[in-house]
């Protein structure tokens, strides 16, 4: 996956768990929970979907790394390098 695809992958997961949120204008370097309504229960679900879709395990101590989209790209980049993008909620 490219970095752009990782952003799509994360947005698709958020669209799956929070279908009512508007995701078009998410800034890369602002905390996700400051831009949309996401609580700690929702973060569990993001991690759960990463495991289901891409087999990626995120240990609890690394949750902070996923706070922004940029953080997601930096942290997940190496882990998702060889994976293919999967989308469920967003139209390609």
């Amino acid at each position, binding site marked *: 996956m490219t970095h752009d695809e990782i952003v799509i992958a994360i947005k698709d997961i958020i669209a799956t768990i929070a279908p*009512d949120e508007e995701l078009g204008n998410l800034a890369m370097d602002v905390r996700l929970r400051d831009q949309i309504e996401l609580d700690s229960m929702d973060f*569990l679900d993001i991690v759960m979907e990463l495991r*289901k879709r891409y087999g990626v*395990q995120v240990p609890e101590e690394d949750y902070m790394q996923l706070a922004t989209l940029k953080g997601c790209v930096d942290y997940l980049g190496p882990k998702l390098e060889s994976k293919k993008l999967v989308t469920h909620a967003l139209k390609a």
Partner: protein
Amino acid sequence: MRYDAVVIGAGMSGLAAGIRLAQAQKRVVVLERHSLWGGLNSFYKRAGRRFETGLHALTNYVPRGTPGVPLTRILRQLRIPYEALRLAPQKGSQTAVRLGSEILRLEYSNDFARMQGSVARLFPAEVVGFERMVAALPGYDYADAQALAVGARQRLGEFIRDPLLVQLLMIAPLFYGSPTEHDMSWAEFGVLFRSIHLEGMARPEGGIRGLLEVLLERYSKEGGELRMRCGVRSIRHERGRVLGVQLDDGSELETDQVFSSAGLVETRALCGMERAHDEADVGRLSFVEVCCVLDSLPETLGHDATIVFFSDGLPLRYQQPPDFVEPRCGVLTCPSNYLTTSPPQEGLMRLTCPARHASWVGLEPHEYAAQKERAVEAMLDSARIFAFDPRPHTLYRDAFTPRTIEHFTGHRGGAVYGSPRKSRDGRTELEGLSLIGTDQGLVGVVGTLLSGIGIVNQTMLRPTGGPR
């Protein structure tokens, strides 16, 4: 057979727990002793008609997308679109009290201004105190230990000087979910007042049955397994750890995580860990409920309130009555009085009053039927006072008692709101055994769904595995 998790009971909390576990790709089975799902919020068929149990309504009603509130959170966690519930908001409800020859009606709807207006009309001197009370209400998280330790009546009295208004404000929250008689904690009052008054009430268009179907569909889509007519005889454990469950037919399922919605005392019994104080931990509140099918809609008979919480005289007798039933207080609801897009074909009135479980057990069938008739007649006399008399319009009626409730929910004493002792973190003396549902202490349909979700999240979905 080995499972990652076993859930006891296919009620609201069990199904919600099952969905969360299946979503996380856990191998999970939900076990239900009866042939119908739903537990305390269920439905049944009599004389070709379907009847529902429970209050026919959801509290915590908010418009689609309202952030940070229970309904939005459960829908998101269960991945159920808001539209799937097809919620019809209430028209308007009331707390009605007869004092002498006068009936005082505190009115409210999903627009809080209506309640504020009603308070201002009935108690002009209390407007400021009422607003201060609302601003001071504890939140949904039960995080405030002090609020759990102090009684709601006492705290209300600190804001509101007129004891009559204090009494009126207690009635709906008590009937909506208090496992304790007369009073509840300020923390519980906060949750219930928010759920009923600050948010509101609505009815799924398909009724409770429609809501259960949505949950079942989600559960099976996620790959969860459901076994009906499959009761649990015991929970097996060794050295403080869960090993599995034994079913009524003697077969065993292995697992190290059990989520039980059976109730606190009932779950202890399943573990063979009865306690001397078990009797005291059985809830004292049960109910007789009657459903009258009518030849006309209540609205055309001049009654358009959605729910009426009533008390003939004060103080309110929210308690176990000395014998069969307490007809002078209760809840009266008309499922056609919601703002629905598919108007019902038949009118329905449902009436629920406190009852004494011990009076109803052990009666011979003819005596049981006769007592039930007597109880229902007394209850319908109250309906005549606070709404209308359904008897001249009744095509068919059916009633059930604490005995029925105990049989179908497995809750001892037919205790609808479970034990007064709650396990708010869901933990038990055994590792791998969690309580969900009524005795975890969240009330109402939305609360109990949240209970199943929250306890599963906390015990199994954290990546490090163990609880917290």
